[in-house]
């Protein structure tokens, strides 16, 4: 068997590990258009903040390819995928044949079509090259456009290096896809306490300056600045799949079946490029996050070896870590009204508990968890996450789920009620104790 992996980040590396755990001999060739291998994309803000040097961005050791008998082709772009002939062509003119191929081409940072966006001093933050560019930018004032996870982290990273940052978001709150208004309020306060100016409901209209950016004009004012970070989101990098005639989903990702296979036989997709079934939304969705990429890479890798392993589906999970001083985690759908795929019979419920420093919210559909927000107290976030993943009925256990004293052992009766869904040995051994 000859495996080809296109991509070099979480999904790709996870697939390599899964293939190698089952198939020790076959050849694996990995192609990435980035020069730097094995670095963790989600850590780039830490690099900008000067908190992690380049070697510490790696999520696998330098001997990973050797250990796993992988032939890496770094900085080599795959230009053509021939589905019928099962070959690829690369930018250096070479052709490679495969039996199974994984598309893990990831996402591309969106560059909004704002006049002047091509000026110097303006960058997205997605690749190592981006991170280096931002790190080397000169000046004391920055505007970060887009207050998603990367935008917030980029802003705080620049602030930690003494740069005066302004965070600009055209929607009405920070982290609009991650938090509801209440949680966003807590996070916003924390960001502002760090000395960052946060402007929401305000749109960037153009960039000023000759060659180099000198300001951002919004619908309310002009913000003078020396640098701009664009963090308005990512879209799947599907050029290769489109060229190969592989089916693209409604959300413009590569559509995969429950075995992570695309519309083309023996060609799989995983990670930010893939459009998968979202458990919380009960519809196809793009969940461009690290943990999903890693688990999808695992399922794709196992299926590529010929074993059949059904992917239960994805769901969004975000943690903003220590950037704002308190832990904040968000899972699945955080506003019931954002469930566009709801049918008339679906019954939604939101439960919230707010104290001075903590916030907890649970979103239920037909008595099953489809979303949660935890701020301040987050240690038990994984319990809610697993209840979402397994879609078990919990409507009769709301006081327990919302309690500060929520713990795994008290959840055992719920697990036991759904024992067929909790068949993993770790759950089983605790259920078997008879508690």
């Amino acid at each position: 068997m000859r495996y080809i992996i296109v991509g070099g980040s979480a999904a790709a590396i996870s697939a390599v590990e899964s293939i190698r755990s089952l198939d020790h001999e076959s050849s694996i060739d990995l192609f990435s258009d980035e020069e730097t291998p094995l670095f963790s994309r989600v850590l780039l803000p830490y690099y900008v903040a000067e908190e992690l040097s380049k070697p510490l961005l790696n999520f696998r050791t330098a001997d990973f390819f050797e250990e796993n008998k992988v032939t890496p082709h770094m900085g080599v772009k795959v230009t053509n995928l021939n589905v019928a002939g099962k070959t690829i062509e690369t930018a250096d003119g070479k052709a490679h044949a495969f039996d199974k191929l994984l598309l893990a081409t990831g996402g591309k940072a969106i560059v909004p079509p704002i006049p002047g966006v091509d000026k110097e001093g303006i960058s997205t933050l997605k690749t190592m090259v981006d991170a280096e560019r931002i790190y080397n930018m000169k000046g004391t004032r920055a505007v970060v456009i887009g207050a998603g996870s990367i935008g917030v982290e980029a802003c705080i990273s620049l602030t930690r290096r003494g740069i005066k940052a302004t965070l600009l978001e055209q929607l009405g709150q920070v982290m609009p896809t991650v938090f509801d208004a209440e949680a966003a309020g807590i996070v916003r306060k924390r960001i502002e306490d760090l000395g960052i100016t946060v402007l929401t409901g305000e749109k960037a209209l153009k960039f000023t300056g000759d060659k180099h950016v000198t300001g951002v004009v919004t619908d309310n004012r002009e913000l003078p600045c020396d640098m701009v970070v664009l963090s308005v989101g990512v879209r799947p990098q599907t050029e290769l799949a489109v060229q190969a005639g592989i089916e693209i989903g409604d959300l413009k990702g590569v559509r995969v079946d429950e075995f992570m296979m695309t519309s083309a036989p023996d060609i799989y997709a995983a990670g930010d490029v893939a459009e998968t079934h979202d458990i919380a939304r009960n519809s196809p969705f793009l969940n461009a996050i690290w943990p999903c990429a890693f688990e999808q890479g695992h399922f794709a890798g196992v299926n590529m070896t010929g074993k059949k392993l059904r992917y239960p589906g994805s769901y969004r999970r975000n943690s903003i870590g220590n950037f704002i001083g308190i832990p904040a985690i968000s899972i699945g759908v955080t506003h019931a009204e954002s469930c566009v795929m709801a049918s008339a019979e679906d019954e939604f419920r939101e439960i919230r508990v707010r104290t001075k420093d903590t916030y907890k919210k649970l979103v239920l559909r037909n008595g099953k968890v489809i979303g949660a927000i935890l701020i301040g107290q987050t240690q038990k976030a994984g319990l809610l996450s697993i209840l979402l993943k397994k879609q078990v009925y919990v409507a009769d256990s709301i006081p327990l789920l919302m309690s500060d004293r929520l713990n795994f052992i008290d959840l055992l009766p719920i697990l036991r009620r759904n024992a067929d869904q909790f068949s993993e040995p770790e759950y089983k051994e605790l259920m078997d104790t008879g508690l």
Partner: protein
Amino acid sequence: MVDKEKCTGCHQCELWCGTEIASISKELAKAINEEPQPVPRVYVEGKPFALQCRHCEEAPCLDACPNGTMRRDPETGLVYVNEPTCIACWMCVMVCPFGIINPSSSMKVAIKCDRCRNMGYPICAEVCPTGALSLVERKDYRKKKF
């Protein structure tokens, strides 16, 4: 393993784990006044039952960790946090299905049980006064009838 018939919920395991593993002084009387406060890696929960990391065969924390800080010891299979490289992103906390990873804001590391991998025998089992906690091979544990 944990024998629920014998666990009385005395919290001795928590006290000793917090002192022997987490504290600087290693003495209970001093440990309680330490800053940052030492935290145990075992939790007496529910009915009661002393729960610590299960060292899952397919551990979600290993997949979620974005820089290889969460590791599995190839010899023992134990999952542990390589504390010097932990960046406190709390992705492991977000995915742990047992809720046993503590996001320590004061120490800026994820804290969890490593089954005292550097000490040979886990302190919680050593100090348990009723023998509710003991070290048993996983395959024997799974065969045991409760």
